[in-house]
């Protein structure tokens, strides 16, 4: 089976039943960091601990930039080009979902891909809104708050509040899907996201897992982007309309 995004570099197809390395370490670390960060961000916002909230938000920014870079340069199962599919593929996958078993998919299935993209987009949007937001009293503000006027900042703050509900909804769908796969499809998705490995009934082509050096490089780049944002994104002001 020759899937796009898989590569013969790791050589042989896995033997039937032998675990296949599916998710590399960076994917798993980023995923579980999201799981820890999201409730922490909610809690710090809820309690008005905005100092910590903003710092955690910057960690979230680093993770999101990293995940986007990893979607371009990472292992085959991390790459957007490898798993993001068109509506036809999604439709075909949906029809097959309740029918006979199709060919095993190594990595995100076409439907799961939508969930990955939606969550990444929403989290990214939420972080960007937070960068411009401030509290009512002007005591705490995101690092880019000074780039926009009072009314725009108020709108960003308002959307930042609404955005969390949207994220909650998509996380809810994500968790329901995992429960569906576990109970109806008898497919445990959580285990592989922890160990990185999964057993397939039929032999499959092993994903191409890239070196951790590449991840270190992407992390340095993401850190750099966050550092630039933290210092108020010098140079960006020219691109924005002057504050009203």
């Amino acid at each position, binding site marked *: 089976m020759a899937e796009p995004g898989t590569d013969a570099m790791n050589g042989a197809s896995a033997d039937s039943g032998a675990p296949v390395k599916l998710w590399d370490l960076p994917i798993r670390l980023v995923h579980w960091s999201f799981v820890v960060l999201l409730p922490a961000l909610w809690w710090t916002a809820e309690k008005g601990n905005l100092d910590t909230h903003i710092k955690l938000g910057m960690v979230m920014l680093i993770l999101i930039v990293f995940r986007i870079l990893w979607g371009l340069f990472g292992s085959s199962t991390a790459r957007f080009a490898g798993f993001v599919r068109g509506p036809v593929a999604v439709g075909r996958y949906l029809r097959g979902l309740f029918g006979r078993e199709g060919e095993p998919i190594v990595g995100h299935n076409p439907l799961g891909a939508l969930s990955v993209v939606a969550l990444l987009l929403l989290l990214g949007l939420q972080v960007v809104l937070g960068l411009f937001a*401030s*509290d*009512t*009293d*002007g*005591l705490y*503000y995101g690092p880019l708050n*000074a780039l926009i*006027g*009072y*009314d725009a*900042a*108020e709108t960003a703050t308002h959307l930042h509040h609404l955005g969390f509900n949207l994220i909650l909804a998509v996380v809810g769908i994500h968790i329901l899907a995992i429960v569906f796969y576990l109970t109806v499809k008898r497919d445990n998705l959580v285990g592989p996201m922890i160990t990185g490995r999964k057993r397939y009934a039929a032999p499959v082509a092993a994903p191409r897992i890239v070196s951790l050096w590449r991840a270190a490089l992407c992390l340095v780049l993401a850190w750099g982007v966050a550092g630039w944002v933290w210092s*108020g994104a010098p140079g960006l002001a020219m691109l924005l309309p002057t*504050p009203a």
Partner: protein
Amino acid sequence: MSKTLIAAATALVGAATVAAATAWAATPAETVVTRQNNFKQMGRASKAISDELRKPAADLAVIRGSAQTLANFAPQIHHWFPRGTGPEAGARTGALPVIWQRNAQFGNAANQLVNATRNFQRAAASGNVGQIRAAFPAVGAACKGCHETFKGDK
């Protein structure tokens, strides 16, 4: 220079709005809207100061104009909350009933802001950025001190 003009004009328009609102008896819903617009003006002035203080070279004229706006508005807050302009006014408002239940405490909280904005105005007049920077957090703290108890979500 134009920023100074804008700040001065904002202060004038704000003062005029308040004068207009108190000159004629407004409906509770109108009072809520006027009050919210006034607080927004204060928010704008506060952000203008905060933005300047984050720049390498703060524009003192902007800070002084905004300090004036804040100092003008703060003492008027006492008149912005007549009875009947809480959630029962029929307009979307974050004003909590506790404002009228513990009215003396509310008045004290508003006075905190009056003092803080007066001190800040003095600092702004001095032209000493260090002094301005030192006096500003008390303004935000006074906002928060009142909001924590008396303001809910709209």
